[in-house]
């Protein structure tokens, strides 16, 4: 049966965003350098409009989930949850980039186009229900990111980040693909439902188990969980800061979404063995990320290690497989993680005057006196990252740790609490620099309305959902996998 043309309505948001990206690419060739800001604003508007368009497929279908394109693409609430977060992260990234790119010698057109295209990749990823469509979308996302990481090509660090990310990304793709091929060999199908049926028929097939392990390892790379995390600090440090912020949030959201989808709907029912690898990786990741962050002087590296630590916490959500708690806890946590991480990165962006200045922890010295608002905002984000109430970070961690305990992983929850205590040390190095150290000389602070607006939005979310978490919680619970 050839696919019905009416399926096109299912991918209206993705089509729209791709079209805008291509349009901007062409527009960038005719617009002068001074007016490149317009491209950013158009990209931003496109992201917002895509967010609105997300609801078009929903209005067109009668029942959820609606699968289209010969079992490749699903419209469901689970993908909606992640798509909204991803679009928001991309929008925040563009707000961060306005001055950052505008004052750099690098062209803006391709930059914003690539951000939009990597976003398109993520949108396709979270809707994928077929291993091939998921994989191709993942590569679309990843390739755009390799380029974005090396966008400041005259900076050695940036090009180094891109090269490392590219080589290791290709390597991880190889592992992932090999895993997928083994799964295909065992199941003779690539749709998630088909894989689930085949697994249920022969759950302990070595071919399946090896395939599942390799797929898990490939995805761990994208999540940056140990021992597949080694690339992350280098890439976060080298990439342009707005891009580092985006890397810390966007790809991870998409990777968690497909991890959940592949393992819950594909591998889950047949073999629950995979939870032990997830637990092992979670434990290792928490320790490596948090201990590693203790040694960092560079704020971007520090946040990179911190995001590795957070990946470890988040992985605990998958351990609740089979209970009602794991997945909603993970989704709540990811939303909170996106808010606080983007906020913290926003302040790093503001602190940079040009290039790589303003990245050391020492550059935060005396910020509380130079700009008390910014220092207070940073304090809130850091408290939230540590998981101290009444911030959204606490809510997320609370749900995650209780879900892990309810799934019987007490020692892991304990380790999580311990590592949260450790994380306070390095987060508070920044607090100490801001409040208890005197910075002298000129204000290197650059007030910037666009970044401020994004940071304020993150701040509002961090506090609001910390004090009143119910809307976020019920939204996550309404958007579970079917």
């Amino acid at each position, binding site marked *: 049966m050839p696919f019905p043309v009416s399926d096109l309505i299912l991918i209206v948001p993705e089509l729209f965003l791709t079209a805008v990206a291509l349009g901007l690419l062409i527009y960038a060739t005719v617009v002068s350098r001074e007016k490149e800001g317009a491209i950013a604003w158009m990209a931003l508007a496109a992201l917002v409009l895509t967010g609105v368009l997300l609801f078009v497929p929903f209005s067109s279908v009668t029942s959820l989930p609606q699968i289209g394109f010969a079992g490749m693409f699903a419209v469901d609430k689970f993908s909606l949850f992640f798509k909204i977060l991803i679009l928001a992260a991309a929008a925040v990234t563009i707000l961060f980039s306005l001055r950052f790119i505008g004052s750099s010698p*690098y062209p803006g057109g391709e930059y914003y186009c690539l951000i939009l295209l990597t976003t398109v990749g993520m949108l396709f990823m979270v809707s994928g229900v077929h291993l091939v469509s998921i994989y191709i979308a993942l590569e679309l996302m990843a390739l755009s990111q390799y380029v974005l990481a090396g966008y400041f090509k005259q900076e050695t660090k940036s090009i180094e980040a891109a090269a490392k990310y590219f080589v290791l990304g290709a390597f991880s793709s190889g592992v992932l693909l090999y895993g997928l091929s083994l799964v295909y060999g065992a199941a003779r199908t690539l749709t998630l439902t088909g894989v689930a049926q085949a697994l249920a028929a*022969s759950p302990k097939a070595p071919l399946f188990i090896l395939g599942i392990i390799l797929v898990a390892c490939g995805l761990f790379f994208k999540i940056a969980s140990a021992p597949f995390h080694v690339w992350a600090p280098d890439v976060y440090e080298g990439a342009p800061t707005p891009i580092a912020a985006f890397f810390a949030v966007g790809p991870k959201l998409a990777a968690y979404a497909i991890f959940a989808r592949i393992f819950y709907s594909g591998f889950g029912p047949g073999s629950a063995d995979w939870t032990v690898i997830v637990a092992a990786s979670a434990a290792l990741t928490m320790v490596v990320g948090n201990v590693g962050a203790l040694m960092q002087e560079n704020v971007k590296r520090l946040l990179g290690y911190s995001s590795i630590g957070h990946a470890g916490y988040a992985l605990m959500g998958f351990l609740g497989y089979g209970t009602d708690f794991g997945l909603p806890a993970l989704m709540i946590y990811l939303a909170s993680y996106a808010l606080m991480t983007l906020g913290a990165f926003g302040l790093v962006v503001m602190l940079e005057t040009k290039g790589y200045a303003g990245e050391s922890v020492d550059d935060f010295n005396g910020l509380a006196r130079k700009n008390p608002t910014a220092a207070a905002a940073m304090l809130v984000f850091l408290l939230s990252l540590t998981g101290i109430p009444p911030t959204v970070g606490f809510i997320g961690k609370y749900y995650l740790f209780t879900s892990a305990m309810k799934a019987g992983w007490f020692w892991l929850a304990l380790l999580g609490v311990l590592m949260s205590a450790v994380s306070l040390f390095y987060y508070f190095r920044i607090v100490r620099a801001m409040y208890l150290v005197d910075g002298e000389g000129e204000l290197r602070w650059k007030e910037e309305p666009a970044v401020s607006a994004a940071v304020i939005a993150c701040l509002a979310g961090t506090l609001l959902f910390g004090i009143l978490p119910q809307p976020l919680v019920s939204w996550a619970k309404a958007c579970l996998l079917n």
Partner: protein
Amino acid sequence: MDPSVFFFWVFAAITVVGALGVITMRQPLHSALFLLLTFLAVAGLFILQHAEFLAAVQVLVYAGGIMVLFLFTIMLVNVRRQAKEPFVNRRAGIAVLAGFFLFLLVGGVLTGPALVKKGPPADPAALKTTVIENSTARVVVPGNSEAVAWGLYRDYLLPFEVASVFLLVAMIGAVVLGKRSLEKFD
């Protein structure tokens, strides 16, 4: 011995030797030539699987187009220097050991008792025909390239289109990173 099995082993051996050559040669040009060898051997494997179209594409696109690009690049960049650092570094031992164990594990899994319930043995010839169903008719289309076409443009249309965007990104990336000057400095 069944000639197809015999040729399978021949091509498989050439593939592996070629791949080893790619990573052990010190001259980029030699590596590229070994890569060409691998590509051709893989094309041979495709033919053994009755995937003639795929084999043809493999030769045309990879062995033809992409290899030529590789060789052009290598000649243009003119890399004559040998890498300075020793070929095997201190971690090589661990790497070899790890690779060996991984090889044993994977090999063990693949050759060991297959607990997967066997379906009917796949008939390579069946790939040559594709059954097209729609609401009104059931059409059997013969031929290898047709089968690929139906698969690519019907079942896998969405990944195919996403892949086209992917290639576009690759192009943009090459331009962005490869362009020598930054216009803002002009």
